[in-house]
């Protein structure tokens, strides 16, 4: 696995992002600078609750990235309850998805790297209830 993925592993696995104490906005993925406050911002690390709702989604049939095992899969734009948005896989029957559907984050296997046999993990979302 590439070092750039190891480096971010804590943020991927634990859904850790940023919170700006100056303006109260949440960010995912984490940022070093608040785009609203810039130099005046006070950015702190924050653990998201992992709860949110689906804003948009796609059922992907033709993915070229080689570490995705099964197709089709669902990927969604999710608004976390704190306000930040995240693009992540959504583990559910595509026909059951509705706009606004409540979801929560889970730690799951993403797939295997074909060439190196390395297993990738990350945060997926599942429907609540």
């Amino acid at each position: 696995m590439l070092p750039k993925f190891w480096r971010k592993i804590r943020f991927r696995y634990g859904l850790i992002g940023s919170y700006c104490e100056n303006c109260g906005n949440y960010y995912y993925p984490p940022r070093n600078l608040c785009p609203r406050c810039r130099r005046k911002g006070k950015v702190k690390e924050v653990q998201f609750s992992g709860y949110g709702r689906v804003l948009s989604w796609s059922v992907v049939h033709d993915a070229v990235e080689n570490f995705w095992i099964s197709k089709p899969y669902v990927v969604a734009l999710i608004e976390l309850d704190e306000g930040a948005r995240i693009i992540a896989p959504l583990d559910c029957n595509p026909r059951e998805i509705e706009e606004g559907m409540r979801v929560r984050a889970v730690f799951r296997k993403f797939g295997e790297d074909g060439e190196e046999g390395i297993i990738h993990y990350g945060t997926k979302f599942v429907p609540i209830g």
Partner: protein
Amino acid sequence: MRVAVIGVGCSKFGELWEMGFRDIMISAGVEALEDANLEGKEIEAIYVGNMSAGRYVGQEHIASLIADYSGLADLHIPCVRVEAGDASGGVALRQAYMAVASGMHDVVIAAGAEKVTDVPNAVEILSSCADVEWEVFNGANLPALYAMIARMHMRRYGTKEEDLAMVSVKNHKNATLNPKAMFRREIDLETALNSPYVAEPLRLFDCSPICDGASVVILASEDVARKYTDTPIYIEACTQASDYLALQSRRDITTMDSVVQASRKAYKIAGIDPKDVDVVEVHDSFTIAEIIAYEDLGFVEKGRGAELVREGVTMLDGEIPVNPSGGLKAFGHAVGATGIRQAVEIVLQLRGDAGKRQVDAEMGLSLNVGGTGGTAVVTVFSR
């Protein structure tokens, strides 16, 4: 300093198996020099848009390579490679425009080139226009990102899969009139709507084909332009704007703020309104992108973009013909070449040299977008 286009050139777009990166680039360059009636030594600088020669053909430092194989090495002029994803060509055009507008140079080349068919993972490389770590790694390649844009636009504004298909049908039809287009065959609505899903709700015929190609425009200051051509086409404005790289950070994924900002600024500089534009080339990397471009460029209010294609307004014989060339969808998307290729089409249309796809136009506009809107370049041209 007012800037004029004095010559244009374009290679064939498509899977050019028999041609390497150098051959493609040079074929477009030679055509542009002939069109501008230049010998070559008049060129003072070259700006070339290229997204990823390093990954596509394993060659970096292509600025020097291009000066060299253009036969200009002995002139020792500056040659600059510009990268902005699939807006590389548009950004190169703007760099060249600024070089002339500033008075620094009198005659410069703006080029774009990409050779993608030597590698098996061309689409994956193109997806690195998106945020590789936080979009692509999480399963959202470019088609999936545009699919999420499309779904939200459809749910919020009532845009239908049929509307997307109509964009594809229109652009394919236009391409049949363009000898250099990659796909020169008409398709019907049924074919588009029955093609397999790539990323729902986008189907195969909603996605532009990534391909090989190169394009060149030669710019000159107004003072010298008339020495070379009787039909200079003027650049009235060339603006660029950026946005958050990833969709998840955007204010609203159904609007490209970069396009809104760049176009509003361009209209202001050119002293025109959207309704003054007669012919347009937009970045239809996916069909939904063309519909959103209608809105973000101000041709119609937000949410009503689909009406323009439903009512035929953007067809070749409509009120505002969009993508008369065939667009990225049917002319082909040669990544870093596309922004220049769009400029070539607008220049041909304004000069009256567009052959069977000629429309009646005095003012033209091109929109080149990088990724899902992280970069946008808008250029306004006039006769």
